[in-house]
């Protein structure tokens, strides 16, 4: 069994600070996935500690704003880390970046772990839950999602049915 924390708390904190800037989710939410350590290790394994360090430096140099990262390698690592947080999937890197990093592994996408998929942040952007996990309960799909207007339920339209309308040209 691998240790739960193979890296120092300090570097995980740096990774989380950068991840918050990349994803728009705060450290509490990121910890809340239970994936922080695994993702940090995955990034280190995939592109190596020095490249992760250069990415963190580039982000710092940009004042913490990922839009300000100019180096394409650092930027593609930023894309990959954001992609991982949102979907649980480490993606293919851009082909030139893969070459530039001299990676000794195939440039293939993979789901970091089964739980990484279910902890993807993308579902939370629209107040959803991952398909196949964290079910919200029987019938909840009938409720309006946050920000949506109430509409009549089936069977409630006893009156005021619109007459025949045409769809227009």
């Amino acid at each position: 069994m691998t240790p739960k924390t193979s890296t120092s708390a300090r570097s995980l904190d740096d990774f989380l600070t950068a991840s918050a800037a990349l994803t728009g989710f705060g450290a509490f939410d990121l910890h809340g996935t239970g994936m922080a350590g695994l993702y940090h290790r995955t990034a280190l394994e995939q592109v190596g500690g020095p490249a992760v360090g250069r990415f963190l430096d580039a982000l710092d140099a940009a004042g913490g704003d990922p839009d300000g990262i100019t180096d394409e390698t650092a930027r593609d690592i930023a894309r990959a880390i954001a992609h991982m947080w949102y979907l649980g999937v480490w993606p293919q890197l851009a082909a030139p970046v893969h070459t530039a990093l001299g990676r000794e592994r195939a440039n293939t996408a993979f789901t970091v772990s089964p739980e990484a998929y279910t902890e993807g942040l993308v579902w939370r952007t629209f107040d959803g839950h991952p398909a196949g996990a964290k079910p919200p309960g029987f019938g909840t799909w009938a409720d309006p999602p946050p920000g949506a207007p109430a509409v009549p339920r089936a069977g409630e339209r006893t009156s005021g049915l619109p007459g025949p309308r045409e769809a227009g040209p």
Partner: protein
Amino acid sequence: MSPAPRHGRARYDVIVVGAGLSGSLVAKELGDKGWRVLVLEAGTGTLGSWPGHLGALDTYYAALAKVPNSPYRPNAAAPSPDVLDLTGLPSGGYRSHGYFLQQGPLPYGSDYLRAGGGTVLHWLGLTPRMHPEDFRTRRTYGYGRDWPIGYDDLEPHYRAAERALGVAGDAAEQADAIGLPFPDGYVYPMRAIPRSYVDDVFASRLDGAAVRETPGAPATTLRVVGVPHARNGTPDPRYDGGRGYRPVGAAGLPNYGERCVGNASCVPICPVQAKYTPLKTQASWDRRRVRLLTQAVVSRVLADGTGRALGVEYLEYEDPAAPAPTTRTAEADIVVLAAHAIENARLLLVSGLGNHSDQVGRNLMDHPVLLGWGLLDHPVGPFRGPASTAGLECFRTGPARRSRSPFRIEISNWGWSWPEGSPGSDVARLLGMGADPAQPRGKGLFGPRLRAALGREIGRQVSVQFLMEQEAEERNRVTVDRRRPDRLGIPRPVLTYDLSDRVKSGMAAAKAVSDQIFRLLDAEDRTAYGPGPLSPGWFRFEGRDFTFNGAGHGGGTHVMGDAPGTSVVDSWQRCWDHPNLYAVGCGSMPSMGTSNPSLTMAALALRSSERIHRDLTAAHRPAAVGPQEGRP
């Protein structure tokens, strides 16, 4: 203690080939009546245990492409076709690189699953009945093939199937909106699954609106209608004359899955097993009489010179990754092929049986699916609940069938997952990442702007699916190629598949309806069809682009009819050429209308079980075995 089946002696009353929906039901019915049944399943039985089920769930979570077969491990001894086997070419056409050998103008785009439980493990779970009109399109509208039986003949078996599968629905609404005849006062075992917010939004904007397939054509009034599901919901105390119904929970874990909790992954796997799967039926088999042998691939049906089926030859293997099979035979009074439409045809062709009519393998049908997708003007809560809880039923019947295929419209609850691979594709796109890593990448959005953009776009995704009827055509067929065997040496299926102009005209009408639906919804229509790697089903028709997908509804390949010269099986699904050989499943259907076919398939299997019981009773008496005892 009653006598256990004598495993040493490979002689049974019935051999059932395939432990999927039809096979599991036939084995259940005949085992309960006292017959000794051997069920031979080509795939593994791992999904029947709870650890096996959880393993499939993990495989699904870890899969990059969450296609219908993604939770289920590959099996070299019993390979399954996969929708990922097809790739579209840049300027049209397709390449097929899996189990099927495909040579038709268009690809057959559906998969199935060779494993204990069968393809129904990854079905959506919708159980609409076929419309009475669907059984006689030749007589009524001059196309396709008619059934030798009608809706009325099948109606009691529909009810039996609705009990066996555990259907939730609103019979009164089905009768009123679709015109389905039910016996007076009939209610489904469970109350209707609540329709989704997406459905309510559609209804609020579409109900009562009129659309026209072409300018000047008659208007059709839209109405959003709930659909029956084989999915656990709220039992209806009125069912069965007031005796009610108790939902059947998960196979392999007690007290689980007795109600849908909205995992929103019915296809490809229901984590709690609130959706019917044949594993539930198998859990109720009387195991003293029904013996399941998994990892046993039937290679040949054995028959004597008079046409009587004697039994089967099968290949038993241990390791699905590196099979080293042992050839065995088993004998029975009756052999029932229940291995999927394409596998049944393959077995008959390989065995050289049942094909006096030259119809075996022909009439291959599916429900070709056209998709439409767009963005609504407010959040709709996509990716919640069963994949579809309602649809538009008004294009399923009527005189328009004379000239174009009818269609059923499913309202999707899962955003653009099917048309665009959402939400994964949305994340990649907004991050500036294309599918090809060699292409330059965009700058990409990050941070709160990325989060907000994803929420705004995904949260408004809506899509509709048009399931087209495809009529039986002899040219659409399954053959076998003895020069291209699978790992066990059994010839692989060769598919020749195309869409008729009738289907294509139906798609043109469906697209016209789709355009109007998105206008009525005030939605931004994002539907677009073009060639490309993800569009193997692209074609042009009358100057316009279309892309279709398979629905996983293969049928027609051992077609039922009223005469031995023109059909493979009779109305009992019994081969005309072999009185004790049955081929059951969607392969028997002369037409599939616009209804998801599993319920009809189940009804046919239950009907055939009665006939098989009569056949066996005429020859023997059932084994004297006491009533089933409680489990230890």
